[in-house]
């Protein structure tokens, strides 16, 4: 079934995420959009990647979209299904190249909050999930990519709770805290792709979604976004043939790429 409607935000996000995945890499994915994106990359420009999951499964035979990290689709006929402690150990030991994580809040240094809205853990405004594997991957993996929708509340100057350290307070503070890997290399939202300025480690625009001016991105952010030198590049739009693959072969039931009503 061919569908000519333009890409929605989630489909664009899935494409932007997939662009971060180079071929021949070990990729740690959670459920949700990053998983659809990793499969999209696998079916397009990165046919030789290997996917690793927190459940311990790796390199499963592709099937439907899993609703849980422990779902059979994350270990479907997998040759290897490791205990969870060992699965994270692979990240620490340098076997994982890139990992994707979601957030409820992300700050200017790429620190992530998935714990709560409000400052007090014993009495928050809203309790969210807590870490799960978010902190482990963020602490250990060579390259981290953070993925989520962008609003001022979700991009505050300081997160309410640091679940996972990104670049902590900038500069060399991540390394000084004892963490492994380069930390977050990108943040991907519906408005754009951001990287981190190499010295200060502050979030910086890398490219914006076509049609989105700087002002929109800045108004959706609770801190000052750094700009690249010169003109701000546009993120390439999802080509029609890739959109077709996403809709027909990656997530045909729209589990992760249908906008919530």
């Amino acid at each position: 079934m061919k569908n000519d409607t333009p890409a929605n935000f989630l489909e664009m996000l899935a494409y932007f995420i997939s662009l971060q995945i180079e071929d021949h890499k070990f990729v740690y994915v959670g459920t949700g959009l990053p998983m659809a994106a990793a499969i999209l990359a696998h079916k397009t420009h990165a046919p030789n990647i290997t996917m690793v999951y927190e459940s311990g499964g790796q390199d499963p035979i592709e099937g439907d979209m899993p609703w849980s990290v422990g779902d059979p689709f994350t270990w479907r006929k997998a040759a290897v299904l490791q205990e969870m402690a060992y699965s994270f150990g692979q990240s620490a030991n340098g076997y994982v190249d890139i990992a994707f994580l979601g957030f409820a809040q992300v700050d200017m240094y790429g620190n992530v909050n998935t714990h709560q809205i409000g400052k007090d853990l014993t009495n928050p405004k809203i309790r969210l999930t807590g870490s799960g594997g978010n902190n482990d991957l963020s602490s250990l993996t060579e390259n981290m990519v953070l993925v989520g929708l962008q609003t001022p509340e979700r991009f505050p100057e300081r997160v309410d709770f640091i679940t996972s350290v990104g670049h902590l307070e900038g500069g060399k503070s991540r390394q000084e805290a004892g963490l492994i890997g380069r930390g977050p290399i990108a943040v991907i939202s519906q408005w754009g792709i951001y990287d981190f300025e190499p010295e200060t480690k502050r979030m910086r625009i890398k490219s914006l979604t076509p049609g989105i001016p700087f002002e929109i991105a800045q108004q959706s952010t609770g801190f000052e976004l750094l700009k690249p030198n010169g003109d701000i590049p546009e993120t390439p739009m999802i080509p029609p043939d890739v959109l077709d693959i996403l809709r027909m072969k990656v997530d045909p039931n729209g589990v992760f790429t249908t906008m919530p009503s």
Partner: protein
Amino acid sequence: MSTFSYNQEALKNLNIGDASLLNHLIDFESAREAHLNKVRGKVDKRISLKEAVAEYVMDGDVLCDTGFSYVRTCHQAFFEMMRQGKKDLQMIGAPNTNQSYMINYGSVTFSHNSYVGAEMRGTDRNYSRQLKNGKVKILSEWSHGGIAQGLKAAQLGAPGLFSKQMLGSDIMNYNPYIKTMQNPMRDDSDPVAFIPALYPDVAFLHVQVADKYGNACIYGPVVNDIALAAATRKVIITAEEIVPEINLRYVKDGAMIPFIYADAVVELPFGAVPGNMPGYYYWSRQWWEKLMRYAAPDEKRFIEFIEEWIMGTKDQFEFVEKLGGAKWIAEARRQTKAAESNNEDIDFRYQEYTTVNKADIYY
């Protein structure tokens, strides 16, 4: 019992006045004593679930979750603890705390968290409400990997291990058990997190097959369960099927738990319902949607739901009847085989539970 030197800032941040509540989880001597007293010989350990819960779950025990969120989790054992009115358990919600219904009835009053919620089904608004109402007190906050390392250290017989996880995060400020230290072998600065070995009081491990002595075989994700079985003071194996011991020798397709860990064995078909049991049945997606999306946001609806499904059923068979009986079993079996690539692919589309799309069979 030993005395312990906790992370004082975390005690303060968590408002824990009586730190002795924390001791049992890291008390090696009493765990070793419990293990020394386990029956050595191969004896028939089979009892019923009701007997196992009555005999082995004591009010105030440290109870640990098993499986992974909805996968191979001992939901029916949790339900039986509720029905028997167990009180004041400390729940280790790792890998998951989607058992927050135990809080509303006072079965769980303390939690050690690494994850709260139901993944794609959303955050657990019941847990959030119980926390704000003071019905549950957080004793420690973790990452998945941190708690996995604590259990693994116990399995290795090590007092703890040094981790590179959780450093610099606010989790360190809300976990009395973890301390940031300098790596003692390095001259240059190298912060590490010391994680003590963890010894829960009681765990129910639901497996596909076991023998009557407690040799147990897990197919699908093991997650923490081998380490947990080695660490825990009281281990109850519940199994979809009990098989002769000879069937569990030379098993290649699955991970083994040795019988010495098991205090009791329960034959418990559908013991992971409404979760997914690899090889046996897929999870009831609509049941979880009704719980997390319809019931959990409102206290009254939540209690009605729990009264109907947990307190209002006497065992797993009544529960399965409510899900849709034999029709549900046939579909759940077909789905899990398809998910595992063990039959022809089937269409996984289904109607999500809404107040309009009410389910008569909970697929």
